[in-house]
């Protein structure tokens, strides 16, 4: 399982694609961070009533993590689309199938590989925000909750991306499909915002990310993300198993 993850990481770093995506995302997040810090002074000086005053941690984090969740929506399908579709297209799946690995090992290994790759970015954001500690006292718990939330959100994106990648042998199609699916799941809460009791609302990824973004680590939300990941990984395993059974 870890060998597969290692192989995926290696193949992501073997192509310029991985480096470019890392560099571009790091630049974007850095920019949001810099903007957040600059804007804070303006906004804070303008806020007269005590209720309007927010801490710098919360102010900057909201800018960075808010944008990160949205930008990952584009980045993850780009990376996840080739995981299985590419192997299918270049006929390399038999290489993995005939190695002493179960299909679960293969799928979970690929998932872990991608998640580890993206975790470098998540950690990078976390470190970037901790540098604020040089000038002021920051709320580490808040950053921790946001990091965990983003990690879970990205994990869900990856799981769904892998599933769509296993459906087709065209990486581009897999990428577009997973982007559309993720986008719908993201903005579901906007569509049904009028009725807060709606069941559909519970399926929105954004709604569950929101509590993390507010600094609240809720086991209910963790369970939701864990279930989401398990569901799509299981579906992927079933899909690949069907390949073996039906040919």
């Amino acid at each position, binding site marked *: 399982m870890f060998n597969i993850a290692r*192989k995926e990481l290696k193949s992501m770093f*073997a192509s310029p694609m991985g480096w470019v995506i890392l560099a571009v995302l790091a630049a974007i997040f850095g920019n949001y961070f810099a903007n957040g810090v600059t804007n804070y002074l303006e906004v804070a000086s303008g806020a007269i009533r005590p209720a309007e005053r927010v801490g710098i941690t919360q102010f900057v984090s909201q800018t960075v993590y808010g944008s990160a969740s949205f930008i990952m929506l584009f980045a993850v399908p780009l990376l996840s689309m080739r995981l299985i579709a590419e192997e299918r297209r270049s006929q*390399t799946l038999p290489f993995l199938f005939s*190695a*002493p690995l179960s299909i679960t090992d293969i799928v979970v290994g690929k998932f872990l590989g991608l998640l580890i790759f993206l975790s470098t970015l998540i950690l990078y954001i976390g470190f970037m925000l901790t540098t604020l500690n040089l000038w002021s006292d920051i709320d580490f718990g808040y950053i921790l909750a946001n990091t965990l939330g983003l990690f879970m959100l990205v994990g869900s994106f990856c799981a769904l991306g892998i599933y769509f990648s296993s459906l087709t042998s065209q990486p581009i199609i897999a990428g577009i499909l997973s982007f559309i699916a993720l986008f719908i799941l993201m903005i579901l809460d906007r569509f049904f915002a009028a009725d807060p009791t709606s069941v559909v609302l519970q399926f929105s990824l954004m709604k569950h990310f929101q509590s993390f973004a507010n600094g609240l680590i809720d086991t209910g939300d963790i369970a939701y993300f864990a279930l989401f990941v398990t569901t799509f990984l299981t579906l992927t395993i079933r899909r690949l198993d069907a390949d073996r059974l039906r040919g």
Partner: protein
Amino acid sequence: MANLTVEAIELTRLYGGRAAVSDVTFQLQQGQVLGFLGPNGAGKSTTMKMLTGNLAPSAGSVKICGIDMMEHPKQAKALIGYLPEMRPLYKEFTVDEYLTIAARLHQVPSGQIKKAVAHAKERCGLTHMSKRLIENLSNGYQQRVGIAQAIIHNPMVVILDEPTVGLDPIQIRDIRALIKEIGQAHSVIVSTHILPEVEMVCDHVQIIDKGQLVFNGGIDVLKQQRIGNKLLVGLRHPPEAAALRAIPGVTAVEAIDGLWRVQFAEGAQPHEAIAQAAVAQQWGLYHLAPDQTSLEDVFVQLTYHDAATDAPAKAA
């Protein structure tokens, strides 16, 4: 039976009701090389996919060194090295990187990976290509990487699907020598279209046609049929066919491209009689040799014969 490495028991594979492979049963012992022959679409690759656990059989079972592929796939797969028809190469890696990944996936202990990679490269003549990207290698070298990948963990059973496709004659000779070498200690299954290749490297031959095993036996049996009971005779002043047929032992004569193909009865040796008759009657004998194409004939006969008997069965 000692040291059975591969056992296929009544392997059957259906694709939407049509049997791609039906009731294929065979065994392979340690130290044997099995040649798998058959026309296109006969089910060679399907059988190999089932042997390696890439495809689940609709019925029947596969045992590798006594381990059932269905029940303990991980242990069984660890004993197999497989080169599919389409080379499963990750082209963005170098040869070294790719082989290291292959070794790791096949559970070679991490201390021995370097040694295993070096050994596999040496056996396949890839040592001077170590740092090249697989993408930039020629077709033949890519094929060698594919073979190196299949033997890197020193498996008990090596299964190669058309290993000599796209290689130049010298490489083909090397690969054949390699297959023979592996075959001494382990078992090898090779599928191919090239009949002389089977004769050179294999101990056992199986001919499969329309998913059914039509021939299964030692190479000696096939060789005997290859030398066969036919002679090619070249005559500058050919007589009537009847005159040739009159020679004792000869059963049939047919003219092909200026030569005569003379069939003789089992056990008869009409070679000398033909030569003597040719000298005595001044036919101008310039060619007298066993008919070398008969292995292909055997192949065609076996597969064509099956088709002929199959057709009425389907019609009925």
